[in-house]
């Protein structure tokens, strides 16, 4: 094994699945074998898992673990101090319950759960802690319910244990909306259960009557079976079918005919007539049809609701961007307090590398702030006293003192969450169309039923009621009302499992009609992270030496430019630079081996040189150039650039094959634009445009009749995302961009786009088939029923069968056709699977 893994193939971290840097030298013993690790963080986590005897986790998992944040792990002392805060009674009172036996119980949100094995790992690890009485983890909503004995263990120890195996626990306070959602889910499940269980019973009884085609059954037994059916059907109609009646009543009050109206008339009418028939021992009973119809409709609604809740949940993790604690100045002393206790006017110290805990204004200190979580811009912004900072952003360079201006509901993050909520309130356009069709259909059915009733009243008054009911039952808009929602539910679910989260209903419809697709460049087609592309030496010093010096200077900065050099620091253990000085927005100055160097913007680095160099002197225009200078002599140019996303080229090619016009629309004006468009074979490129011009361009396309998909990620893309027919945000996009997008590409894998387009087309096809089938069925059944030719059991079977056809057809959408070219890097995957299967 060791021979194979030391071969020249790129190694993948056994824990998180990321590439292992060459000569990283981190490993951990799992099941008696030494496995490669990419960083000390993964190593620590893997060792903790192995030490707990939970190595089985690696055997069962279906996805790689999340890579623990190494930078965060460097501050583990600070982290533990933060966790200690959770032991305070004042902090605990909002989310910890004390049970009658004195033990405590709390709900936590766990970050980092990727598969069922994580749940197993967490549950076993936590249950093994002394003092923990119960630990259960919910995989669907990533919540843990933990009970412990406060005499034996502290909450901070439990949180520390979660942290030690690579997850993060946050206290969970359900807000009002989440409580409502939970209550809605439970109510819907109960309704479904009532309808399901009783329908089975009623069908059993109904079968007895249907089987009696020779009328051998004595009347007293028939009457008894009818009464029994009545008893069983009543809770179905009054409890399970209640949402339909409520909705129909609401629709009638607003004078609109939706599908709920005929559904309610059918359920209510058939039930009332059946009760009448039972009481008077005459005519037919339809208890079985009523309850089965209700059950089918409830199944559709239930699935629809599940999908809606799932997309709605995306917003919950947003607030976790805020740190748990904050350092405030109270009476001249620095005190660590829970971030939830911050008040307007508090003075907070934010150390470099820490997250700003609330919106505020800088009082003292100069630093750059990484706002990528909010804006998608990967270069930090320089901020000075008087500038505003937003909670959830990261302080990169120097300590800052800020005065808190907004907390809680007023903060910018909360407003983003509210936007997200609003985005989920809208009703899908396809569903609206279906409702419109249904409106006409309902009117037609009602008119027909009345006409039939009148005609039969004149011919044979004793049959009138039963024939009319037969018409209502057989034309029950069951299939019609199931046609669209089931197809949409199945397709949305399939896409979600494949990394595309659809947040608005019109997406599937619009996707299938799209003609143009417009990409933003940075963060969409490219990864949005700087990496070192090229090094050109100018002086006698060789390439490696220049890189060593640059890496040494940049080693201790968390600035994205510095991060581009960090891989080099890890490859070679470089002696640290001394006497470092950071010129914000310009560059760095420091001493390596007794010699003073400067690195950064050409003008800044060469300011002491005989000739001051600028960007014009850079070797070419393809990226961002940094200059390294010593004692007035320029040493080397470093070119930083943003690498293309994996599979970007294949995805663009596929989209073009599907007949879409691919355009790149970017605010970037550098030569990198040309390079990217050439690599991706995109001939329509518009560069150097402002957000307004982006929007104008898309609107112009739309004026020419194009239906545009916009794919973007940053805050600068928001206007154009809002303007396009369909907007898709990348998974790593800013939250604001995600809230404004109709769909989110969670996996950030561009290959999913052509797949989604195919699936959307298929969805449209199936919806059309379903609607067509439902209409054909009704057109055939209606005249037969109206002429009194359809026996009640035939009506019931016909109605159920037509619904089953529709649901079955829709379920074909629940699986996405896998036509990915390369699922994973072929070079490394055989090695990894070998490692895993042997463990």
């Amino acid at each position: 094994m060791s021979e194979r893994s030391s071969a020249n193939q790129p190694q993948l971290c056994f824990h998180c699945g990321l590439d292992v840097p060459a000569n990283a030298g981190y490993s951990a013993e799992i099941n008696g074998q030494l496995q490669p690790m990419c960083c000390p963080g993964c190593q620590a986590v893997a060792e903790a898992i192995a030490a707990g005897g939970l190595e089985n986790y690696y055997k069962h998992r279906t996805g790689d673990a999340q890579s623990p944040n190494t930078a965060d792990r460097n501050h583990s002392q600070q982290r533990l101090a933060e966790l200690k805060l959770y032991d305070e009674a004042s902090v605990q009172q909002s989310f910890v319950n004390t049970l009658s036996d004195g033990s405590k119980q709390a709900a936590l949100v766990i970050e980092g759960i990727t598969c069922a094995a994580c749940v197993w790992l967490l549950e076993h690890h936590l249950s093994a802690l002394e003092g923990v009485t119960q630990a259960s983890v919910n995989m669907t909503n990533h919540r843990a319910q933990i009970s412990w004995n406060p005499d034996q263990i502290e909450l901070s120890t439990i949180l520390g244990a979660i942290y030690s195996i690579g997850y993060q626990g946050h206290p969970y306070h359900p807000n009002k909306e989440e409580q409502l959602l939970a209550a809605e889910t439970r109510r819907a499940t109960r309704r479904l259960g009532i309808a399901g269980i009783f329908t089975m019973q009623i069908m059993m009884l109904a079968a007895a009557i249907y089987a009696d085609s020779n009328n051998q059954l004595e009347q007293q037994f028939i009457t008894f079976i009818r009464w029994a059916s009545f008893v069983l059907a009543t809770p179905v109609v009054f409890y399970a079918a209640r949402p339909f009646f409520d909705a129909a009543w609401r629709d009638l009050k607003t004078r609109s005919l939706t599908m709920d109206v005929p559904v309610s008339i059918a359920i209510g009418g058939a039930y009332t007539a059946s009760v009448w028939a039972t009481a008077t021992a005459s005519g037919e009973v339809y208890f079985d049809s009523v309850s089965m119809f209700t059950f089918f409709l409830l199944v559709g609604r239930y699935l629809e609701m599940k999908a809606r809740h799932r997309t709605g949940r995306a917003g919950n993790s947003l607030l976790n961007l805020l740190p748990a604690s904050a350092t405030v100045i109270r009476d001249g002393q620095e005190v660590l307090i829970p971030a939830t206790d911050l008040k307007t006017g508090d003075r907070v110290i934010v150390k470099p590398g820490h997250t700003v805990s609330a919106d505020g204004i800088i009082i003292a200190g100069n630093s750059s702030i990484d706002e990528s979580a909010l804006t998608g811009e990967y270069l930090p912004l320089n901020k000075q006293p008087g500038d505003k900072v937003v909670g959830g952003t990261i302080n990169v360079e120097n300590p800052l003192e800020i005065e808190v201006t907004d907390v809680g509901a007023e903060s910018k993050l909360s407003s983003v969450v509210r936007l997200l909520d609003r985005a989920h309130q809208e009703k899908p356009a396809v569903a609206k169309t279906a409702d419109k069709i249904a409106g006409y259909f309902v009117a037609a059915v009602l008119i027909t039923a009345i006409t039939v009733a009148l005609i039969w009243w004149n011919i044979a008054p004793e049959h009138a009621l039963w024939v009319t009911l037969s018409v209502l039952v057989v034309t029950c808009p069951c299939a019609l009302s199931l046609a669209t929602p089931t197809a949409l539910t199945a397709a949305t679910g399939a896409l979600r499992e494949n990394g595309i989260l659809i947040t608005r209903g019109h997406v599937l419809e619009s996707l299938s009609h799209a003609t143009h697709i417009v990409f933003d460049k940075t963060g969409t087609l490219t990864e949005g992270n700087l990496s070192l592309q090229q090094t050109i030496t100018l002086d006698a010093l060789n390439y490696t030496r220049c890189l060593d010096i640059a890496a040494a200077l940049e080693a201790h900065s968390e600035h994205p430019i510095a991060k581009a050099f960090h891989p080099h620091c890890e490859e070679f253990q470089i002696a640290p630079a001394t006497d470092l000085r950071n010129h914000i927005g310009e560059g760095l100055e420091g001493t390596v081996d007794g010699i003073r160097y400067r690195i950064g913007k050409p003008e800044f680095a060469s300011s002491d040189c005989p000739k001051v160099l600028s960007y014009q002197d850079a070797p070419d225009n393809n990226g961002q150039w940094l200059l390294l200078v010593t004692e007035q002599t320029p040493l080397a140019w470093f070119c930083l650039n943003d690498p293309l996303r994996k599979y970007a080229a294949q995805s663009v090619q596929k989209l073009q094959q599907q007949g879409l016009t691919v355009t790149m629309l970017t605010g970037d004006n550098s030569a990198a634009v040309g390079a990217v468009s050439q690599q991706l074979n995109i001939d329509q490129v518009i560069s150097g445009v402002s957000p307004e011009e982006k929007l104008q361009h898309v609107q112009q396309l739309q004026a020419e009749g194009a239906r545009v998909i916009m794919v973007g990620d940053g805050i600068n893309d928001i206007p154009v995302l809002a303007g396009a027919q369909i907007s898709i945000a990348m998974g790593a996009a800013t939250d604001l961009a995600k809230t404004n997008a109709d769909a989110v590409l969670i996996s950030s894998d561009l290959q999913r786009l052509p797949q989604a387009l195919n699936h959307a087309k298929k969805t449209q096809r199936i919806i059309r088939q379903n609607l067509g089938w439902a209409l054909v069925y009704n057109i055939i059944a209606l005249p037969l029923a109206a002429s009194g030719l359809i026996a009640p059991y035939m009506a019931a079977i016909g109605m159920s069968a037509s619904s089953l056809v529709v649901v079955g057809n829709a379920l074909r959408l629940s699986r996405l056709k896998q036509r990915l070219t390369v699922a994973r890097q072929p070079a490394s995957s055989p090695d990894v699977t070998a490692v895993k299967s042997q463990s």
Partner: protein
Amino acid sequence: MDIIYLLIPIAIILAGLGIWGFFWSVNSGQYDDMESPAHSILFDDDEHLIPDDAKQKAADKQDD
């Protein structure tokens, strides 16, 4: 046939019991997570229950 006067009420009572059990399970949160229990059955944390000689046989089989 008179037996149905007894059997059908029993069936209804049983269905009622089923509903009661169902409500209880919904309210106690058993339907909140529909994913992980389906996986947890597959985890081999019952390894200590397998006799050692059986383990040996399984290992031999794998080596073939």
